[in-house]
């Protein structure tokens, strides 16, 4: 069976079903043990043994070093901040047998009494699990390396030297060299934190409850936090139950309007600027690009203060007699109009968003074949008609992927909301205000209020929603399916 699979052409392997692939993997494991040399057999227990057998000493030593290192770490359980790695960390993952009290003493630089830090227990538990996965991968790698040397010997070739292996890293296995830094960095600083936060959604980790109970400890509580979204039970259930759907609804409305206004606004602006015979194209473009170049915390805070209660615009409106009291454009005071704030953020967002589309469509507009317009003009089509029948379909056709990604981007448009309204007008008793998006709500809940489990639930739900949209649209698109054939 094993040899049959091996003879099959390479591209057929990808057509195997999932159980078949697992079967192949297992049979290749058994085959290596049975067929392999003594060195390969020994490699199953001692890393690098096969390499020593084939006189690949440096490689063998490196494998051995990894095995000894990981095993030592697992057995010795070194601890950081009183929280151990290794097998004790796996035990600690249950978050039982935790110790209350104690804390870091800045004077002595020591922990006064031993106490448990539940979040580090989870974190280090996951690090240990990752370490075990690495161990298994290296185990497989070391057997494969020895087995390859066996095969080389069989056909009369010499096993590769360490120098040859290194050289191969620059050619046939160049991707290994190039991807390793990113894989390690992303595993530590992106994947591990994400998995950790997902785990927090299944715990009781929030500062409010812990303060109420006077404890530093938290524990696992299964799906209760997710249940609270529907039932509203628990100390934070009320917030997440009552505010989730309104925030989600507004996030969608915002994303639709922000995407469409900036998209069509950008196309129109590009058409205006690229009009034949217009002078000062470059100057105009530079002015509009300013909102892309200037950091948003500067530009959006400038607008926020311009529109503020005592700012120039409200003063002007009062002086002109258009209003008696300052208008709460951005819903910064309680009682300000929510609808006005919503309209204002969409309008102000055009100010920062339209130039993006303008830049992008400028090039596309110039690439539209001129004879299309010529033919239309001969047929007596008006400018408006040409816009709707030629320009718009052409631009939309090319920029569909951009439309999708900018919709997702707008769902997560933190700056536009956070810097302008701060989520306001506030709902008394709730974190989520009238213009809060899922992301700004997530920010308030986790960073401001330290309600980590609630934040994690919001984050996971946000992910599920954006992932669904992306899957449905991207996976059907040409750009994804024909990614390979495009070139």
């Amino acid at each position, binding site marked *: 069976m094993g040899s049959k699979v091996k003879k099959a052409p390479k591209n057929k392997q990808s057509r195997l079903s999932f159980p078949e692939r697992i079967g192949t993997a297992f049979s290749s494991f058994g085959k290596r043990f049975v067929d392999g040399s003594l060195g390969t057999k020994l490699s199953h227990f001692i890393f690098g043994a096969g390499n020593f057998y084939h006189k690949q000493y440096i490689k063998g030593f490196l494998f051995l070093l990894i095995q000894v290192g990981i095993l030592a770490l697992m057995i010795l359980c070194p601890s950081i901040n009183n929280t151990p790695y290794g097998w004790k960390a796996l035990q600690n993952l249950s978050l039982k047998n935790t110790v209350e009290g104690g804390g870091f003493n800045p004077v002595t630089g020591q922990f006064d009494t031993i106490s448990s830090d539940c979040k580090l227990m989870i974190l280090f538990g996951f690090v240990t699990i990752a370490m075990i996965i690495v161990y298994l991968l290296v185990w497989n790698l070391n057997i494969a390396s020895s087995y390859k040397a066996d095969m080389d010997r069989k056909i009369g070739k010499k096993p590769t030297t360490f120098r040859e292996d290194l050289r191969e890293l620059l050619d046939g296995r160049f991707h290994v060299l190039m991807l390793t830094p990113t894989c390690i*960095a*992303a595993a*530590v600083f992106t994947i591990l934190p994400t998995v950790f936060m997902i785990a927090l959604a299944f715990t009781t980790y929030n500062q409010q409850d812990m303060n109420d109970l006077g404890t530093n400890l938290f524990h696992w509580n299964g799906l209760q936090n997710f249940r609270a979204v529907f039932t509203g039970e628990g100390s934070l259930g009320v917030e997440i139950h009552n505010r989730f759907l309104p925030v989600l609804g507004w996030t969608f409305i915002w994303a639709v309007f922000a995407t469409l206004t900036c998209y069509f606004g950008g196309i129109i602006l590009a058409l*205006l600027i690229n009009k034949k015979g217009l002078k000062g194209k470059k100057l105009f473009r530079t002015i509009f690009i300013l909102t892309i170049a200037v950091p948003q915390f500067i530009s959006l805070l400038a607008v926020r203060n311009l529109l503020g209660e005592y700012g120039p615009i409200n003063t002007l409106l009062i002086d002109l007699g258009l209003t008696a009291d300052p208008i709460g454009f951005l819903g910064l005071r309680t009682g300000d109009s929510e609808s006005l704030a919503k309209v204002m953020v969409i309008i102000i967002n055009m100010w920062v968003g339209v130039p993006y589309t303008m830049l992008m469509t400028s*090039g596309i507009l110039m690439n539209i074949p001129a004879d299309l317009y010529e033919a239309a003009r001969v047929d007596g089509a008006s400018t408006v008609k040409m816009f709707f029948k030629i320009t718009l379909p052409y631009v939309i056709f090319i920029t569909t992927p951009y439309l999708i990604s900018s919709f997702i981007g707008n769902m997560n448009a933190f700056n536009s909301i956070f810097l302008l309204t701060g989520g306001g007008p506030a709902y008394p008793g709730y974190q989520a205000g009238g213009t809060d998006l899922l992301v700004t709500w997530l920010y308030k809940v986790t960073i401001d209020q330290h309600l980590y489990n609630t934040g994690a639930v919001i984050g996971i739900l946000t992910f599920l929603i954006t992932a669904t949209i992306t899957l449905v649209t991207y996976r059907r698109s040409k750009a994804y399916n024909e990614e390979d054939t495009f070139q």
Partner: protein
Amino acid sequence: MSMTKTKKVASQSRNRRVSLTVTYAILIILGIIWLVPFVWILLSAFRCDYQSDGTFIGTVTSYFFPKHFGLKNFADLFSATYYAVPRAFPRWMLNTLIIAVVDCLISTFLVLSVAYCMSKLRFKLRKTFMNLSMVIGLFPGFMSMIAIYFLLKSIGLTGNPAHPEYSVIGLILAYSAGAGLGFQIAKGFFDVIPNALVESAKLDGCTNFQIFRRIILPLAKPIIIYQALMSFTGPWMDFIFAKVIIGADNPSYWTVSVGLYSMLFGQYSNTNLFTQFAAGCVIVAIPIVTLFMFLQKYYVEGVTAGAVKG
């Protein structure tokens, strides 16, 4: 016959002139709207007005144009002690510069290496890697932010009472570590480089490394500049991540945007600091905008490469 023709041409050119005038009018009005907030920040930065009792007015004022101009805000900004940090603003500028330069080098390298692999090499887990990076990218960044803080803190790279300066290293790691997963735009660019070029080099006996070094990199100048621009300007624009990672209680090692933002919001905020905030904004914005305007061509190329493919 010829009379009607000239008439037609004349009316056409008149139409064109009218439509051009309308376009100019619209663009000028829009241009003014686009500039007003920036002009206002600029004016506020140079505002030097005093109340009748001699106290300086640093708040947002109800009038748009200052009554007196001066450099007091800039002088104060550079000499003042903020949040118990003497001469804080120049410090923040230096911190941000260091972080931005290192982040720019690491991120650009990571992005280019991943993008090249995904675009021009074929290997077993390629599609898996691409799907995985897309899925991870869909998790909101704020979710893992606090976890990155816990992680860095556990290894002493932030919130370390003995070495508060380590948090700068922590922030650089946090900014650049995940950069490689954002390879899509650079990959879109590499995809356009014809495969025939790579294949003919391979026939000549070039290794993949040599192809990358001698053929791809020289052609990739626009995308290198785009990536460098993006990762260099990032730390100047970010006011959330930096504060969480470095810590609200560690103002000596803040970046400039965190410092400026904190003048208006949070426990240290003071409404009388608005003009100094504006002065700081001008100082931060000028180099970034200049850089942007010079490299505009590359920016447009990058944005288009990433977005309008397929």
